[in-house]
């Protein structure tokens, strides 16, 4: 059970202390491919809700004005919120560049700022929910509005959780400059970009179109 002896053991597979090193048959590393595939399945989950959205809009209520009368969406505030979330894509990129070049301060600042921007977005979104004046029970529009934005909010929350882990580990001195040593920044970063892009689609579909 001593960690030191295990480290030696894995280097000499014939001692049967650990498995042989797997042959790497692709240039892409496992975690990155894993998160990309996960994002595909997440996109399909959004697809289910978008399918519902367009059904409710185009099939069930084709002639009505959309959003139906009495539903007013704060396009401007949500637009500012969109800008906040988009800017966090740049800060996470800054953090990743910092990690690549060994600039730990840039990495830490970038991660912290991304987290704060994401939390601000979530806070404004919740504030919007409180002041919207309709709930998920109010008609099909209320349901799908809260369904889509709520699903996205849940993804922001998960993204923030992943970023929290990255922040904690960055402040505690983890992550190196080698590609495999800062996957803990890169993988949540990829997910965060996905969350941002998905918000742009949700915003354009629900608020603008």
């Amino acid at each position, binding site marked *: *059970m001593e*960690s030191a002896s*295990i*480290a030696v053991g894995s280097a000499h*597979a*014939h001692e*049967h*202390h*650990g*498995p*042989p*090193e*797997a*042959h*790497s*048959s*692709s240039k*892409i*590393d*496992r975690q990155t*491919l*894993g998160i990309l*595939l*996960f994002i*595909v*399945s*997440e996109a*399909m*989950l959004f*697809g*289910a*809700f978008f*399918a*519902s959205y367009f*059904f*409710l809009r185009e*099939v*069930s*209520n084709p002639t009505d004005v959309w959003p*139906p009368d009495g539903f007013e969406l704060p396009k401007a505030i949500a637009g500012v919120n969109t800008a906040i979330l988009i800017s966090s894509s740049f800060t996470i990129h800054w953090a990743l560049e910092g990690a690549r070049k060994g600039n730990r301060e840039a990495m830490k600042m970038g991660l912290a700022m991304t987290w704060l921007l994401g939390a601000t977005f979530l806070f404004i979104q919740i504030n919007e929910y409180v002041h919207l004046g309709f709930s*998920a*029970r109010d*008609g*099909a*529009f*209320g*349901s*799908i509005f*809260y*369904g889509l934005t709520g699903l996205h909010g849940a993804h922001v929350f998960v993204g923030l959780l992943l970023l*929290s*882990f990255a922040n*904690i*580990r960055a*402040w*505690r001195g*983890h992550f190196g400059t080698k590609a495999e040593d800062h996957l803990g920044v890169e993988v949540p970063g990829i997910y965060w970009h996905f969350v941002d892009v998905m918000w742009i689609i949700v915003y354009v579909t629900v608020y603008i179109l």
Partner: protein
Amino acid sequence: MVAALKNPGMPRAGLGFLIGGLFGFGLVVALRAVSGLEIFQTEATGYPHVIVPGITAPIGFLIGLGCFDYWFRWASGAPTIPDDHSQHGAYSWKDYFKFNTDHKVIGIQYVVTTFCFFMIGGLLAMLMRAELAQPGTQIVDPGVFNSLFSTHAAIMIFLFIVPVFAGLANYVLPLMIGAPDMAFPRLNALSFWMLPMAGVLFMASFLAPGGAFDAGWTGYAPLSTGAPLGQSFFNLGVQFAGASSVATALNFLVTIVTMRAPGMNFWRMPLLVWANLSTSLLVVGATPFIAGAQFMVLMDRAIGTNFFQAAAGGDVISYQHIFWFYSHPAVYIMMLPGFGIVSEVISTHARKTIFGYRLMAIALLGIVILAFAVWAHHMFVSGMFAWLRVPMMITTLLIAVPTGIKIFSWLGTLFDSKLHIESTSMLFALGFLVTFVIGGISGVMLGMIPLDIHVSDTYFVVAHIHFVLFGGSVFTIFCGFYHWFPKMTGRMYDERLGRIHFWMTLVGMLGTFIPMHWIGMEGMPRRVADYAAQFGNWNLVITIFSFILGVAQLIFVYNMVVSWRFGPKAGDNPWRAKTIEWLVSSPPPVFNFDEIPRVVGGPYEFGVPGARHAIMHDGDGATVSGPEPAVAGAASGGGGGEGGGS
């Protein structure tokens, strides 16, 4: 006692289950108190104080079992402990009840667990058949009957057929591609342990007021949105089973792409690996849709949203579109891994290379693409857009092309070969060809709109689905069980009992499901406990054959259990197969390989002089072609055939 509750394991998992449940319950009570609502909701379908613990208790179980220990440590920024492999491999039966990262242990956990669900689902089916033996209601009342067919289908689909293939592939796929384990071993273990949680939720619905969920496995809205509490357990169970399925698929894809042995390019992969690659693409792309559909139903039920409430502007048909956008690809999720198994078995026992290997792989990918374009053929009578009917009919009929390619490739492989049917697995593979072709042809019939309208919601549909899911998937599952049983256990099963099992299963299956075509054509509706007296005789016949089918599975269980314990030693390669899993010991070593093998040729080059698939140890190449054949008969197979792979 305290130590048992502190360390990961079953006692802590039980505690976690309790704490998780209480936490969820407390959360609902607290939130409702804070927001000034009545503490206990009294509406018929809501029950948040049951639904929320239904989510948190299983999560508590998983945390208690130790699924998240490593990740918690990682997330808190603590230095990671070098893996001491203490959670890898099984050294006693107790290790199968733990969080274990060894793909071989997980594979067996999957197979055994899902087979238990198969037995439960089978018992539910036999209860139904007992009720249907005579017209009128004798054993169960119509409400219970609704619960029976719903839980039967949900358990068989979500807890048996889909995951059992994941289990079989879990065991053999990393070995086949020369990987020491799956890409994400901890995620792999988590995927498995979500499955019993889904089972617990499905079973718990029997205890719910109003009975188990009874809206069918399809759970169509608005039937499901207005159903009693049991339906919520279905909604939640599907989430756990679906998450398990997606995580496993992702794991397979990453493993296949990044961890193949040197020399194992895509055109040297065994067809089982190709099949699981295709299946995993389908799972990653489609399964989130059922998660979405069930989320919406759950929200309609629990918090009063209006996704499917027509009166409030909701759209009922949209449920069917979203549901079938998963559930049609799902039938290929339930079939493609079986294609892979059958390809392995037929090639090995015909002693011939697969006829048209590359076309077999391309046909799999063709099915993956077409699978996403046929969903609405389940909805010809639903009142959906009329313009969508004919395109869906055409794509549905098109899908017979890649499937037909596969059938003819298997026939081409068998053609002019010297069959070795010394193994029950080969019997099941040949039986599969017969029954699956029948199921496939009735599928083409159902794809045609006029016939579909005529037989909609009749026993013809029941007959079709069972010919493809029982005659197709379950036959290939048995085929795989028998084929890899010696590899998994190191022992040989009793061939005579295997043969009895096969013939009873085949006869029982044909006797049960063939007459259903006829009574379906005459209009006997499915999903109803009672029926017109004119169908009485056929139903009695069906019930008798279905009981033969049920008894046959007991023989299988006896054979597997006794052979696992007392069977004769199997040897490393009893079928003289070429793929890598047969080139290691039976059962394989804990870490699969001492060194990663080197792949030097195609996987099915039987009868080609000097052909090798893989070299296990560099340096001693002469001794690697496998041990002496344990089964009599020289490798004489046809040397020719269509060498598509090379």
